[in-house]
Protein backbone atom coordinates (compact mmCIF):
# COMPACT_ATOMS: atom_id res chain seq x y z
CA UNK A 1 0.00 0.00 0.00
CA UNK A 2 1.41 3.40 -1.01
CA UNK A 3 0.40 6.89 -2.09
CA UNK A 4 -0.88 5.57 -5.43
CA UNK A 5 -3.64 3.69 -3.61
CA UNK A 6 -5.04 6.93 -2.17
CA UNK A 7 -6.79 9.88 -3.67
CA UNK A 8 -8.14 13.18 -2.50
CA UNK A 9 -11.67 14.28 -3.01
CA UNK A 10 -12.38 17.66 -4.61
CA UNK A 11 -15.12 18.34 -2.05
CA UNK A 12 -12.43 18.83 0.60
CA UNK A 13 -10.85 21.81 -1.12
CA UNK A 14 -11.90 25.37 -1.85
CA UNK A 15 -11.42 27.11 -5.15
CA UNK A 16 -11.72 26.33 -8.83
CA UNK A 17 -11.26 22.84 -10.23
CA UNK A 18 -7.85 23.58 -11.75
CA UNK A 19 -6.49 24.80 -8.41
CA UNK A 20 -7.79 21.69 -6.64
CA UNK A 21 -6.22 19.40 -9.22
CA UNK A 22 -2.93 21.27 -8.95
CA UNK A 23 -2.89 21.04 -5.16
CA UNK A 24 -3.74 17.34 -5.18
CA UNK A 25 -1.05 16.58 -7.71
CA UNK A 26 1.36 18.89 -5.94
CA UNK A 27 1.02 16.84 -2.77
CA UNK A 28 2.06 13.73 -4.67
CA UNK A 29 -1.32 12.11 -5.22
CA UNK A 30 -2.00 10.35 -8.49
CA UNK A 31 -5.79 10.14 -8.33
CA UNK A 32 -8.78 12.31 -7.58
CA UNK A 33 -12.43 11.71 -6.70
CA UNK A 34 -14.59 14.14 -8.63
CA UNK A 35 -17.88 15.74 -7.79
CA UNK A 36 -20.48 16.62 -10.42
CA UNK A 37 -20.41 20.20 -9.13
CA UNK A 38 -16.79 20.53 -10.27
CA UNK A 39 -17.86 19.80 -13.79
CA UNK A 40 -21.16 21.57 -14.25
CA UNK A 41 -20.03 24.55 -12.18
CA UNK A 42 -16.92 25.17 -14.25
CA UNK A 43 -17.04 28.76 -15.55
CA UNK A 44 -15.93 27.65 -19.01
CA UNK A 45 -18.35 24.77 -19.21
CA UNK A 46 -18.26 21.01 -18.90
CA UNK A 47 -15.87 20.40 -21.76
CA UNK A 48 -13.29 22.70 -20.17
CA UNK A 49 -13.69 20.84 -16.88
CA UNK A 50 -13.22 17.49 -18.58
CA UNK A 51 -10.15 18.85 -20.35
CA UNK A 52 -8.71 20.14 -17.08
CA UNK A 53 -9.13 16.74 -15.48
CA UNK A 54 -7.56 14.91 -18.40
CA UNK A 55 -4.68 17.37 -18.60
CA UNK A 56 -4.01 17.09 -14.86
CA UNK A 57 -2.62 13.61 -15.36
CA UNK A 58 -4.57 12.46 -12.32
CA UNK A 59 -6.48 9.21 -12.57
CA UNK A 60 -10.14 9.57 -11.71
CA UNK A 61 -11.01 7.42 -8.70
CA UNK A 62 -14.72 7.89 -9.21
CA UNK A 63 -17.51 10.35 -9.78
CA UNK A 64 -20.12 11.43 -7.26
CA UNK A 65 -22.86 11.43 -6.39
CA UNK A 66 -26.14 9.97 -7.52
CA UNK A 67 -28.63 10.48 -4.71
CA UNK A 68 -32.03 9.02 -3.89
CA UNK A 69 -32.16 6.79 -6.96
CA UNK A 70 -33.68 3.59 -5.70
CA UNK A 71 -37.15 2.80 -4.43
CA UNK A 72 -39.10 5.45 -6.31
CA UNK A 73 -41.98 4.84 -8.66
CA UNK A 74 -43.86 6.51 -11.49
CA UNK A 75 -42.71 9.96 -12.54
CA UNK A 76 -40.21 10.21 -9.65
CA UNK A 77 -38.48 7.07 -10.88
CA UNK A 78 -38.45 8.35 -14.47
CA UNK A 79 -37.01 11.65 -13.30
CA UNK A 80 -34.21 9.93 -11.39
CA UNK A 81 -33.41 7.70 -14.35
CA UNK A 82 -32.86 10.86 -16.40
CA UNK A 83 -30.57 12.23 -13.69
CA UNK A 84 -28.68 8.94 -13.50
CA UNK A 85 -28.17 8.91 -17.27
CA UNK A 86 -26.76 12.44 -17.21
CA UNK A 87 -24.40 11.44 -14.39
CA UNK A 88 -23.26 8.40 -16.35
CA UNK A 89 -22.56 10.51 -19.42
CA UNK A 90 -20.41 12.90 -17.36
CA UNK A 91 -18.73 10.01 -15.60
CA UNK A 92 -17.70 8.50 -18.91
CA UNK A 93 -16.53 11.85 -20.31
CA UNK A 94 -14.19 12.17 -17.32
CA UNK A 95 -12.74 8.74 -17.85
CA UNK A 96 -14.14 7.57 -14.52
CA UNK A 97 -15.08 3.93 -14.22
CA UNK A 98 -16.93 4.26 -10.91
CA UNK A 99 -20.15 6.12 -10.18
CA UNK A 100 -21.01 6.52 -6.52
CA UNK A 101 -24.69 6.04 -5.66
CA UNK A 102 -25.82 6.76 -2.10
CA UNK A 103 -28.69 4.99 -0.41
CA UNK A 104 -31.91 6.91 -0.63
CA UNK A 105 -33.01 9.40 2.00
CA UNK A 106 -36.27 10.14 0.24
CA UNK A 107 -39.54 9.97 2.11
CA UNK A 108 -41.10 8.92 -1.18
CA UNK A 109 -38.90 5.84 -1.54
CA UNK A 110 -40.01 2.35 -0.60
CA UNK A 111 -37.77 0.07 1.42
CA UNK A 112 -38.98 -3.13 -0.25
CA UNK A 113 -35.76 -5.02 -0.96
CA UNK A 114 -37.13 -6.46 -4.22
CA UNK A 115 -37.78 -2.99 -5.57
CA UNK A 116 -34.43 -1.61 -4.42
CA UNK A 117 -32.76 -4.54 -6.14
CA UNK A 118 -34.76 -3.99 -9.31
CA UNK A 119 -33.75 -0.34 -9.44
CA UNK A 120 -30.07 -0.96 -8.73
CA UNK A 121 -30.00 -3.65 -11.41
CA UNK A 122 -31.43 -1.09 -13.79
CA UNK A 123 -28.77 1.45 -12.81
CA UNK A 124 -26.08 -1.19 -13.29
CA UNK A 125 -27.44 -2.09 -16.72
CA UNK A 126 -27.51 1.57 -17.76
CA UNK A 127 -23.83 1.68 -16.84
CA UNK A 128 -22.74 -1.48 -18.71
CA UNK A 129 -22.25 0.01 -22.19
CA UNK A 130 -20.14 2.79 -20.67
CA UNK A 131 -17.87 0.42 -18.79
CA UNK A 132 -18.86 2.06 -15.51
CA UNK A 133 -19.24 0.29 -12.17
CA UNK A 134 -21.83 1.38 -9.65
CA UNK A 135 -20.61 1.69 -6.05
CA UNK A 136 -23.66 1.66 -3.76
CA UNK A 137 -23.07 3.24 -0.38
CA UNK A 138 -25.16 3.08 2.78
CA UNK A 139 -25.51 6.63 4.04
CA UNK A 140 -25.72 6.48 7.82
CA UNK A 141 -28.89 8.56 7.62
CA UNK A 142 -30.34 6.66 4.67
CA UNK A 143 -34.05 6.10 5.03
CA UNK A 144 -34.13 2.35 4.59
CA UNK A 145 -30.51 1.43 3.91
CA UNK A 146 -28.15 2.98 6.45
CA UNK A 147 -25.74 0.20 7.40
CA UNK A 148 -23.04 -1.32 5.21
CA UNK A 149 -24.49 -4.78 5.77
CA UNK A 150 -27.82 -3.66 4.32
CA UNK A 151 -26.18 -2.23 1.21
CA UNK A 152 -24.16 -5.41 0.85
CA UNK A 153 -27.25 -7.63 1.16
CA UNK A 154 -28.92 -5.74 -1.67
CA UNK A 155 -25.83 -5.74 -3.87
CA UNK A 156 -25.22 -9.44 -3.27
CA UNK A 157 -28.79 -10.37 -4.09
CA UNK A 158 -28.91 -8.11 -7.15
CA UNK A 159 -25.91 -10.09 -8.42
CA UNK A 160 -24.74 -7.81 -11.21
CA UNK A 161 -21.07 -7.81 -12.16
CA UNK A 162 -20.79 -4.02 -12.28
CA UNK A 163 -22.73 -3.39 -9.07
CA UNK A 164 -20.75 -3.29 -5.84
CA UNK A 165 -20.55 -1.36 -2.61
CA UNK A 166 -18.69 1.69 -1.40
CA UNK A 167 -17.53 1.51 2.20
CA UNK A 168 -17.24 4.93 3.84
CA UNK A 169 -15.48 4.84 7.19
CA UNK A 170 -17.46 7.85 8.37
CA UNK A 171 -20.79 6.12 7.96
CA UNK A 172 -19.45 2.92 9.47
CA UNK A 173 -18.19 4.80 12.54
CA UNK A 174 -21.10 7.19 12.86
CA UNK A 175 -23.61 4.36 12.95
CA UNK A 176 -21.52 1.72 14.61
CA UNK A 177 -23.86 1.26 17.56
CA UNK A 178 -26.10 -0.74 15.32
CA UNK A 179 -23.53 -2.43 13.13
CA UNK A 180 -20.06 -2.38 14.67
CA UNK A 181 -17.06 -1.47 12.56
CA UNK A 182 -16.63 -4.91 11.09
CA UNK A 183 -17.63 -5.04 7.44
CA UNK A 184 -18.00 -8.56 6.14
CA UNK A 185 -18.11 -8.02 2.40
CA UNK A 186 -16.65 -9.90 -0.54
CA UNK A 187 -13.60 -7.71 -1.26
CA UNK A 188 -14.10 -8.17 -5.00
CA UNK A 189 -17.42 -6.40 -4.65
CA UNK A 190 -16.03 -3.41 -2.82
CA UNK A 191 -15.65 -0.88 -5.64
CA UNK A 192 -14.48 2.03 -3.51
CA UNK A 193 -13.43 2.81 0.06
CA UNK A 194 -13.82 6.35 1.35
CA UNK A 195 -11.91 7.32 4.46
CA UNK A 196 -12.40 10.06 7.02
CA UNK A 197 -12.73 10.52 10.75
CA UNK A 198 -14.42 13.15 12.90
CA UNK A 199 -13.73 15.08 16.06
CA UNK A 200 -16.19 13.83 18.64
CA UNK A 201 -17.13 10.46 20.00
CA UNK A 202 -20.73 10.00 19.10
CA UNK A 203 -23.37 10.95 16.60
CA UNK A 204 -26.63 9.84 18.13
CA UNK A 205 -29.33 10.88 15.72
CA UNK A 206 -29.56 10.83 11.94
CA UNK A 207 -29.52 14.65 12.09
CA UNK A 208 -26.30 14.55 14.12
CA UNK A 209 -24.76 12.17 11.63
CA UNK A 210 -25.74 14.34 8.69
CA UNK A 211 -24.48 17.56 10.27
CA UNK A 212 -21.17 16.03 11.28
CA UNK A 213 -20.73 14.29 7.94
CA UNK A 214 -21.20 17.48 5.97
CA UNK A 215 -19.09 19.88 8.03
CA UNK A 216 -16.82 18.26 10.58
CA UNK A 217 -14.95 15.38 9.05
CA UNK A 218 -11.16 15.21 9.25
CA UNK A 219 -8.49 13.07 7.66
CA UNK A 220 -7.77 9.67 9.19
CA UNK A 221 -5.25 10.12 11.98
CA UNK A 222 -6.66 13.52 12.90
CA UNK A 223 -9.85 12.43 14.63
CA UNK A 224 -10.85 10.57 17.74
CA UNK A 225 -11.57 7.20 16.08
CA UNK A 226 -8.09 6.50 14.78
CA UNK A 227 -8.02 2.99 16.17
CA UNK A 228 -11.30 2.10 14.49
CA UNK A 229 -10.33 3.61 11.15
CA UNK A 230 -7.12 1.61 11.36
CA UNK A 231 -9.06 -1.54 12.20
CA UNK A 232 -11.34 -1.02 9.24
CA UNK A 233 -8.51 -0.46 6.76
CA UNK A 234 -6.57 -3.42 8.10
CA UNK A 235 -9.65 -5.61 7.90
CA UNK A 236 -10.30 -4.61 4.29
CA UNK A 237 -6.65 -5.14 3.44
CA UNK A 238 -6.56 -8.52 5.17
CA UNK A 239 -9.72 -9.59 3.34
CA UNK A 240 -7.96 -8.88 0.08
CA UNK A 241 -9.29 -5.47 -0.92
CA UNK A 242 -6.75 -3.92 -3.31
CA UNK A 243 -8.82 -1.10 -4.74
CA UNK A 244 -8.68 2.64 -4.20
CA UNK A 245 -9.01 4.60 -0.99
CA UNK A 246 -10.36 8.12 -1.27
CA UNK A 247 -10.41 10.79 1.42
CA UNK A 248 -14.01 11.85 1.69
CA UNK A 249 -13.44 14.78 4.04
CA UNK A 250 -16.13 17.42 4.22
CA UNK A 251 -14.78 20.10 6.53
CA UNK A 252 -15.75 23.77 6.65
CA UNK A 253 -12.36 24.79 8.04
CA UNK A 254 -10.46 23.04 5.28
CA UNK A 255 -12.47 25.00 2.77
CA UNK A 256 -10.96 28.21 4.09
CA UNK A 257 -7.37 27.07 4.31
CA UNK A 258 -4.76 27.29 1.55
CA UNK A 259 -5.12 24.30 -0.74
CA UNK A 260 -1.52 23.07 -0.45
CA UNK A 261 -1.87 23.08 3.33
CA UNK A 262 -4.95 20.87 3.20
CA UNK A 263 -3.38 18.59 0.62
CA UNK A 264 -0.32 18.25 2.87
CA UNK A 265 -2.62 17.07 5.68
CA UNK A 266 -4.06 14.49 3.33
CA UNK A 267 -0.56 13.36 2.45
CA UNK A 268 0.25 13.03 6.13
CA UNK A 269 -2.85 10.89 6.55
CA UNK A 270 -1.61 8.52 3.84
CA UNK A 271 1.60 8.12 5.75
CA UNK A 272 -0.30 7.42 8.93
CA UNK A 273 -2.45 4.71 7.29
CA UNK A 274 0.29 3.02 5.31
CA UNK A 275 2.45 2.90 8.40
CA UNK A 276 -0.36 1.25 10.26
CA UNK A 277 -1.24 -1.31 7.62
CA UNK A 278 2.19 -2.19 6.30
CA UNK A 279 3.45 -2.88 9.82
CA UNK A 280 0.52 -5.17 10.46
CA UNK A 281 0.90 -6.88 7.11
CA UNK A 282 4.47 -7.95 7.61
CA UNK A 283 4.52 -11.75 7.45
CA UNK A 284 6.67 -11.99 10.59
CA UNK A 285 4.14 -10.05 12.61
CA UNK A 286 1.24 -12.03 11.16
CA UNK A 287 2.93 -15.25 12.22
CA UNK A 288 3.64 -13.80 15.63
CA UNK A 289 0.00 -12.81 16.00
CA UNK A 290 -1.34 -16.20 15.04
CA UNK A 291 1.20 -18.07 17.18
Amino acid at each position, binding site marked *: MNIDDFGMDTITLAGPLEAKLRAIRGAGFTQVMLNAGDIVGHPDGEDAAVRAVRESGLRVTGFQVLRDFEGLSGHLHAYKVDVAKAMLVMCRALGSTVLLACSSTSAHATGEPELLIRDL*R*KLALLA*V*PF*GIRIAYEALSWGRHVNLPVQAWDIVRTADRA*NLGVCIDSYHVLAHRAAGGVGVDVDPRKVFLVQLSDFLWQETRSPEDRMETARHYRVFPGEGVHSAEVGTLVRALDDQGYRGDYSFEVFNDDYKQLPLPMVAARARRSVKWITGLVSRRSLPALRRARSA
Partner: protein
Amino acid sequence: MATEVVPEPLNPLGVDGIEFIEYATSQPQAFGALLQQMGFAAVARHRSREVVLYRQGAMNVIVNSHGVMPASPALAAIALRVRDAGAAYHRSLDLGAWEIETHAAAMELNIPGIHGVGESLVYFVDRYRDFSIYDVDFVPLAATAAKPPALAGLHWFGVVQAILAGRTRDWVDFYESLFGFSVLPQGTHFGVLPNGTLLESPCHKFYLQLIEPPPSGPGDGRRDESLVRVGLGTRDVPAAVRALAERGIVFVDRGAVQPSDKGALTQVYLGSVTFELVVSHL
Protein backbone atom coordinates in the same frame (compact mmCIF):
# COMPACT_ATOMS: atom_id res chain seq x y z
CA MET B 1 -48.10 -6.39 0.52
CA ALA B 2 -47.14 -9.81 -0.73
CA THR B 3 -47.08 -10.11 -4.48
CA GLU B 4 -46.94 -13.34 -6.40
CA VAL B 5 -43.63 -13.71 -8.20
CA VAL B 6 -44.20 -15.27 -11.59
CA PRO B 7 -41.00 -16.19 -13.42
CA GLU B 8 -40.52 -14.84 -16.91
CA PRO B 9 -40.38 -17.15 -19.92
CA LEU B 10 -36.89 -18.18 -21.00
CA ASN B 11 -37.37 -16.16 -24.15
CA PRO B 12 -39.11 -13.07 -22.78
CA LEU B 13 -39.00 -11.09 -26.03
CA GLY B 14 -39.81 -14.02 -28.29
CA VAL B 15 -36.45 -13.56 -30.03
CA ASP B 16 -36.57 -15.50 -33.29
CA GLY B 17 -33.26 -14.96 -35.02
CA ILE B 18 -31.51 -12.12 -36.81
CA GLU B 19 -33.56 -10.03 -39.23
CA PHE B 20 -30.63 -8.06 -40.55
CA ILE B 21 -27.09 -6.98 -39.84
CA GLU B 22 -26.21 -3.38 -40.59
CA TYR B 23 -22.82 -2.05 -41.65
CA ALA B 24 -21.98 1.64 -41.80
CA THR B 25 -19.42 2.86 -44.31
CA SER B 26 -18.56 5.75 -46.55
CA GLN B 27 -17.37 3.22 -49.16
CA PRO B 28 -20.64 1.53 -50.15
CA GLN B 29 -19.44 0.53 -53.61
CA ALA B 30 -16.27 -1.16 -52.42
CA PHE B 31 -18.06 -2.86 -49.58
CA GLY B 32 -20.95 -3.85 -51.84
CA ALA B 33 -18.48 -5.48 -54.18
CA LEU B 34 -17.03 -7.42 -51.25
CA LEU B 35 -20.49 -8.55 -50.17
CA GLN B 36 -21.16 -9.75 -53.71
CA GLN B 37 -17.95 -11.76 -53.63
CA MET B 38 -19.22 -13.25 -50.38
CA GLY B 39 -22.35 -14.40 -52.18
CA PHE B 40 -24.73 -11.56 -51.33
CA ALA B 41 -26.72 -9.71 -53.96
CA ALA B 42 -28.05 -6.17 -53.82
CA VAL B 43 -31.81 -6.56 -53.87
CA ALA B 44 -33.26 -3.18 -52.93
CA ARG B 45 -32.40 0.43 -52.38
CA HIS B 46 -33.88 2.81 -49.82
CA ARG B 47 -36.28 5.35 -51.30
CA SER B 48 -34.61 8.43 -49.86
CA ARG B 49 -31.38 7.47 -48.13
CA GLU B 50 -28.09 6.00 -49.16
CA VAL B 51 -28.98 2.58 -47.85
CA VAL B 52 -28.86 -0.68 -49.79
CA LEU B 53 -30.24 -4.06 -48.84
CA TYR B 54 -28.14 -7.11 -49.71
CA ARG B 55 -29.43 -10.62 -49.34
CA GLN B 56 -28.23 -14.20 -49.49
CA GLY B 57 -30.59 -17.00 -48.55
CA ALA B 58 -32.16 -15.96 -45.25
CA MET B 59 -29.49 -13.36 -44.47
CA ASN B 60 -30.16 -9.65 -44.91
CA VAL B 61 -27.37 -7.09 -44.78
CA ILE B 62 -28.04 -3.37 -44.71
CA VAL B 63 -25.26 -1.15 -45.97
CA ASN B 64 -25.81 2.33 -44.63
CA SER B 65 -23.76 5.16 -46.11
CA HIS B 66 -26.15 7.95 -45.30
CA GLY B 67 -24.51 10.91 -43.62
CA VAL B 68 -21.10 10.85 -42.02
CA MET B 69 -19.85 7.28 -41.87
CA PRO B 70 -16.53 5.61 -41.14
CA ALA B 71 -14.45 4.79 -44.21
CA SER B 72 -13.79 1.24 -43.06
CA PRO B 73 -17.08 -0.62 -42.86
CA ALA B 74 -18.19 -1.02 -39.24
CA LEU B 75 -20.80 -3.37 -37.84
CA ALA B 76 -23.43 -0.85 -36.81
CA ALA B 77 -26.46 -2.84 -35.75
CA ILE B 78 -28.05 -6.19 -35.13
CA ALA B 79 -31.76 -6.35 -35.78
CA LEU B 80 -33.46 -9.04 -33.74
CA ARG B 81 -36.68 -10.67 -34.81
CA VAL B 82 -39.02 -10.49 -31.84
CA ARG B 83 -42.64 -11.22 -31.03
CA ASP B 84 -43.65 -7.60 -30.43
CA ALA B 85 -41.12 -4.89 -31.22
CA GLY B 86 -42.82 -2.20 -29.16
CA ALA B 87 -43.11 -4.44 -26.13
CA ALA B 88 -39.49 -5.54 -26.50
CA TYR B 89 -38.39 -1.93 -26.66
CA HIS B 90 -40.33 -0.87 -23.56
CA ARG B 91 -39.24 -3.88 -21.56
CA SER B 92 -35.62 -3.13 -22.44
CA LEU B 93 -35.94 0.47 -21.31
CA ASP B 94 -37.57 -0.64 -18.07
CA LEU B 95 -34.56 -2.83 -17.40
CA GLY B 96 -32.01 -0.11 -18.10
CA ALA B 97 -31.32 -0.03 -21.84
CA TRP B 98 -30.61 3.30 -23.54
CA GLU B 99 -33.15 4.31 -26.15
CA ILE B 100 -32.01 5.60 -29.50
CA GLU B 101 -33.33 8.83 -30.89
CA THR B 102 -35.87 8.00 -33.59
CA HIS B 103 -34.14 10.19 -36.16
CA ALA B 104 -30.92 8.29 -35.53
CA ALA B 105 -32.53 5.07 -36.66
CA ALA B 106 -30.83 3.84 -39.76
CA MET B 107 -33.59 3.75 -42.26
CA GLU B 108 -36.26 6.00 -40.85
CA LEU B 109 -38.40 2.92 -40.65
CA ASN B 110 -39.41 3.68 -37.14
CA ILE B 111 -37.81 0.48 -35.97
CA PRO B 112 -37.48 0.65 -32.20
CA GLY B 113 -33.98 0.12 -30.96
CA ILE B 114 -31.57 0.48 -28.09
CA HIS B 115 -27.88 1.14 -27.75
CA GLY B 116 -25.60 -1.88 -27.80
CA VAL B 117 -21.85 -2.15 -27.49
CA GLY B 118 -19.74 0.83 -28.58
CA GLU B 119 -21.51 2.80 -31.28
CA SER B 120 -23.71 -0.11 -32.30
CA LEU B 121 -27.46 -0.50 -31.99
CA VAL B 122 -29.87 -3.35 -31.40
CA TYR B 123 -33.15 -3.12 -33.32
CA PHE B 124 -36.36 -4.99 -32.67
CA VAL B 125 -38.32 -6.15 -35.70
CA ASP B 126 -41.65 -7.94 -35.55
CA ARG B 127 -42.67 -7.70 -39.20
CA TYR B 128 -40.74 -10.50 -40.82
CA ARG B 129 -43.28 -13.10 -41.88
CA ASP B 130 -45.85 -12.12 -44.51
CA PHE B 131 -44.91 -8.48 -44.57
CA SER B 132 -41.39 -7.19 -44.21
CA ILE B 133 -39.90 -3.94 -43.07
CA TYR B 134 -38.36 -3.55 -46.53
CA ASP B 135 -41.68 -3.51 -48.38
CA VAL B 136 -42.46 0.12 -47.63
CA ASP B 137 -39.25 2.06 -47.74
CA PHE B 138 -37.18 0.09 -50.22
CA VAL B 139 -37.40 -0.07 -53.97
CA PRO B 140 -36.47 -3.46 -55.43
CA LEU B 141 -33.54 -3.49 -57.81
CA ALA B 142 -34.88 -4.83 -61.06
CA ALA B 143 -31.74 -6.67 -62.11
CA THR B 144 -31.62 -9.13 -59.20
CA ALA B 145 -33.85 -11.81 -57.81
CA ALA B 146 -35.55 -10.82 -54.58
CA LYS B 147 -34.35 -14.01 -52.91
CA PRO B 148 -30.89 -14.93 -54.11
CA PRO B 149 -29.99 -18.42 -52.88
CA ALA B 150 -27.32 -18.96 -50.28
CA LEU B 151 -23.89 -20.10 -51.32
CA ALA B 152 -23.10 -23.48 -49.72
CA GLY B 153 -26.10 -23.06 -47.45
CA LEU B 154 -24.59 -20.04 -45.67
CA HIS B 155 -26.69 -18.65 -42.84
CA TRP B 156 -26.20 -16.42 -39.79
CA PHE B 157 -24.25 -18.21 -37.13
CA GLY B 158 -23.37 -15.34 -34.84
CA VAL B 159 -21.68 -12.07 -34.10
CA VAL B 160 -18.34 -11.52 -32.41
CA GLN B 161 -17.98 -8.67 -29.94
CA ALA B 162 -14.65 -7.34 -28.70
CA ILE B 163 -14.70 -6.17 -25.10
CA LEU B 164 -12.22 -4.75 -22.65
CA ALA B 165 -10.38 -6.90 -20.14
CA GLY B 166 -12.51 -8.05 -17.23
CA ARG B 167 -15.78 -7.08 -18.89
CA THR B 168 -17.17 -10.50 -19.81
CA ARG B 169 -19.50 -10.69 -16.81
CA ASP B 170 -20.84 -7.17 -17.44
CA TRP B 171 -21.83 -8.05 -20.99
CA VAL B 172 -23.19 -11.44 -20.00
CA ASP B 173 -25.48 -9.59 -17.57
CA PHE B 174 -26.50 -7.28 -20.40
CA TYR B 175 -27.44 -10.00 -22.86
CA GLU B 176 -28.96 -12.32 -20.26
CA SER B 177 -31.19 -9.78 -18.61
CA LEU B 178 -32.28 -7.84 -21.68
CA PHE B 179 -32.76 -10.63 -24.21
CA GLY B 180 -32.58 -13.96 -22.41
CA PHE B 181 -29.26 -15.15 -23.83
CA SER B 182 -27.51 -17.89 -21.90
CA VAL B 183 -23.84 -18.65 -21.46
CA LEU B 184 -22.63 -21.91 -22.92
CA PRO B 185 -20.38 -23.98 -20.67
CA GLN B 186 -16.69 -23.05 -20.67
CA GLY B 187 -14.93 -25.08 -23.29
CA THR B 188 -17.81 -25.01 -25.76
CA HIS B 189 -16.44 -23.60 -28.99
CA PHE B 190 -17.29 -23.52 -32.64
CA GLY B 191 -15.12 -22.78 -35.63
CA VAL B 192 -11.43 -22.08 -35.67
CA LEU B 193 -11.19 -19.28 -33.14
CA PRO B 194 -11.63 -21.06 -29.84
CA ASN B 195 -11.51 -18.21 -27.39
CA GLY B 196 -13.89 -15.97 -25.55
CA THR B 197 -17.28 -16.65 -24.04
CA LEU B 198 -20.21 -17.94 -26.07
CA LEU B 199 -23.79 -16.86 -25.51
CA GLU B 200 -26.67 -18.68 -27.12
CA SER B 201 -29.76 -16.80 -28.22
CA PRO B 202 -32.96 -17.82 -26.44
CA CYS B 203 -34.32 -19.04 -29.79
CA HIS B 204 -31.24 -21.28 -30.27
CA LYS B 205 -30.74 -19.78 -33.74
CA PHE B 206 -27.50 -17.84 -33.31
CA TYR B 207 -24.67 -17.03 -30.95
CA LEU B 208 -22.76 -14.08 -29.60
CA GLN B 209 -19.10 -14.43 -28.78
CA LEU B 210 -17.48 -12.07 -26.28
CA ILE B 211 -13.73 -11.72 -26.65
CA GLU B 212 -11.48 -10.02 -24.14
CA PRO B 213 -7.96 -9.05 -25.20
CA PRO B 214 -5.36 -11.73 -24.48
CA PRO B 215 -3.79 -11.19 -21.05
CA SER B 216 -0.36 -10.50 -22.43
CA GLY B 217 -1.63 -8.72 -25.50
CA PRO B 218 0.22 -5.71 -26.80
CA GLY B 219 -0.98 -2.44 -25.31
CA ASP B 220 -3.99 -3.83 -23.51
CA GLY B 221 -4.94 -0.16 -23.07
CA ARG B 222 -7.33 1.61 -25.34
CA ARG B 223 -8.99 -0.57 -27.82
CA ASP B 224 -12.66 0.20 -27.99
CA GLU B 225 -15.47 -2.23 -27.41
CA SER B 226 -17.37 -3.00 -30.59
CA LEU B 227 -18.97 -5.61 -32.79
CA VAL B 228 -16.10 -6.90 -34.88
CA ARG B 229 -17.25 -9.72 -37.14
CA VAL B 230 -20.13 -11.87 -38.25
CA GLY B 231 -19.92 -15.63 -38.33
CA LEU B 232 -21.57 -17.42 -41.25
CA GLY B 233 -22.67 -20.98 -40.66
CA THR B 234 -22.51 -23.80 -43.19
CA ARG B 235 -22.76 -27.56 -42.94
CA ASP B 236 -19.77 -27.96 -45.24
CA VAL B 237 -16.96 -25.49 -44.55
CA PRO B 238 -14.54 -26.82 -47.21
CA ALA B 239 -17.25 -26.54 -49.88
CA ALA B 240 -18.04 -22.99 -48.78
CA VAL B 241 -14.35 -22.08 -48.75
CA ARG B 242 -13.95 -23.47 -52.27
CA ALA B 243 -17.02 -21.63 -53.55
CA LEU B 244 -15.92 -18.34 -52.01
CA ALA B 245 -12.31 -18.76 -53.10
CA GLU B 246 -13.54 -19.18 -56.67
CA ARG B 247 -15.23 -15.80 -56.29
CA GLY B 248 -11.95 -14.26 -55.20
CA ILE B 249 -12.30 -14.34 -51.42
CA VAL B 250 -8.98 -14.91 -49.67
CA PHE B 251 -8.81 -16.94 -46.45
CA VAL B 252 -6.10 -16.80 -43.85
CA ASP B 253 -4.15 -19.94 -44.71
CA ARG B 254 -1.71 -20.30 -41.89
CA GLY B 255 -1.69 -20.68 -38.15
CA ALA B 256 -4.58 -21.90 -36.06
CA VAL B 257 -7.22 -20.19 -38.15
CA GLN B 258 -6.40 -21.78 -41.52
CA PRO B 259 -9.42 -23.39 -43.19
CA SER B 260 -10.45 -26.74 -41.78
CA ASP B 261 -13.61 -28.78 -41.45
CA LYS B 262 -14.48 -26.64 -38.44
CA GLY B 263 -14.17 -23.20 -39.89
CA ALA B 264 -12.20 -20.54 -41.70
CA LEU B 265 -11.46 -16.85 -41.52
CA THR B 266 -11.19 -14.43 -44.41
CA GLN B 267 -8.39 -11.92 -44.67
CA VAL B 268 -9.12 -8.38 -43.53
CA TYR B 269 -10.88 -6.35 -46.20
CA LEU B 270 -11.20 -2.56 -46.45
CA GLY B 271 -9.20 -2.06 -43.30
CA SER B 272 -11.61 -3.72 -40.90
CA VAL B 273 -13.88 -6.41 -42.31
CA THR B 274 -13.49 -10.13 -41.87
CA PHE B 275 -15.99 -12.94 -42.22
CA GLU B 276 -15.76 -16.15 -40.28
CA LEU B 277 -17.09 -19.46 -41.54
CA VAL B 278 -18.24 -21.94 -38.92
CA VAL B 279 -19.39 -25.51 -39.31
CA SER B 280 -22.98 -25.27 -38.23
CA HIS B 281 -25.73 -27.44 -36.91
CA LEU B 282 -28.21 -24.56 -37.15
